[in-house]
């Protein structure tokens, strides 16, 4: 790498590091998120021969990030007890850091984040990519390595499950209030 390439790479990292870290956290990287992002950029560099210039870079990079996040989860699973595994979904950390001004009520935010945390990882990740990360179906398909049709049907099913789950919670809250 010459100096110019290093400069360009710095721009790349600056441009994509936040999106990479958000993806890593949403896909279970937990405390390893920074390491996952770093490894993902290194892995991206080493996988460049498989990247075609005509393709979009972001979903291609995110696929590497997601693979690294999954690897980190597997490593943790081997090293840690069952109880610790739940920590991978950032319920109490990042997603609960309510911004000063939020368009969501604290209660709504909490309910959503908790419900997402209780979903199967596959369902949660597809909702995370399509909505939290606001990727298109095509980008989600690349990032998660799924066929377009699968993304479509799985998103619909996951949304339906989340809706039912939230409806159930609303009911519980209603009963509790009585």
């Amino acid at each position, binding site marked *: 790498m010459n100096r*110019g390439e290093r400069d*360009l790479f710095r721009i790349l990292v600056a441009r994509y590091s936040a999106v990479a870290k958000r993806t890593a956290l949403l896909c279970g990287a937990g405390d390893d998120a920074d390491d996952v992002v770093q490894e993902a950029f290194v892995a991206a560099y080493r996988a460049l021969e498989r990247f075609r*210039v005509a393709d979009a870079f972001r979903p291609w990079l995110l696929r590497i990030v997601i693979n690294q996040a999954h690897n980190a989860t597997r490593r943790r699973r081997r090293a840690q007890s069952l109880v610790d595994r739940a920590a991978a979904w950032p319920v109490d950390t990042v997603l609960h850091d309510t911004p000063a001004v939020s368009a969501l009520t604290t209660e709504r935010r909490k309910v959503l984040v908790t419900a997402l945390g209780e979903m199967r990882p596959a369902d949660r990740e597809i909702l995370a990519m399509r909505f939290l990360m606001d990727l298109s179906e095509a980008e989600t398909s690349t990032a998660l390595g799924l066929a377009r049709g699968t993304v479509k049907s799985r998103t619909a099913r996951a949304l339906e499950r989340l809706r039912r789950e939230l409806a159930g919670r609303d009911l519980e809250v209603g009963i509790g209030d009585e």
Partner: protein
Amino acid sequence: MSDITEDLLTLGREFAVQVPDDLAERVLAEIAAPDPRTARRLRWRRWLVGILAALAALGISAAVSAPVRAAIVHVFRFGGVEVHQGAGPSPAASPSLPGQHPTSLQAASAQAGFTVRVPAALGPPDQITVSDAKVVSLFYQRSSERVQIDEFAGNSEPMFEKYTAMGSAQRVTVNGHDAYWFDDPATSIFIGPEGADEGSARALDGSLLWIDGGITFRLDGIRPQTAAIAVANSMR
């Protein structure tokens, strides 16, 4: 209960993360570890061309020294235009786009699917056309000068290829939007579903390219650069 997808989108937008300041340096240090396959360097270089194009399209200024830029940039894409360095195809005798036909200012927006804009500085065009690919062109005949403004939607796929000496591309702004001024003569060719359309090859001499609201605009036939930008700024 508010719509669940809207709430998820909001949750995502408000999901802020901190990235370590030294991330890039750490990545670079790890990459700099011995790599036996030097061929990768070449691929990396070629690949950077694409990334630089993407960055340019996103309005991210690449703070790279001029020689590095010259070495790396062979092609870049801006809006619906892909710019190539070097000589392009010969211009057609009377260049035209597939299905290009005269229309009226009133009808053009409906035909194109976006609101066609007209420069207040030039007034209503002498002629306006729309093509099969929904490229709207405004024409002005000013004494010996022929001015043309092309407007088209979408920038996922390049619609035109433009050949020029890349050294002449200059970053400017139009109404606060990123724009490029090409001072040298260039050739523009329309890329249809079946590839480059030779009948569309057109010589440009001094052209301004900008994106506003998802629409790519190209103005040519007005010099100097400041005059072209003034006209572009007056698009309403």
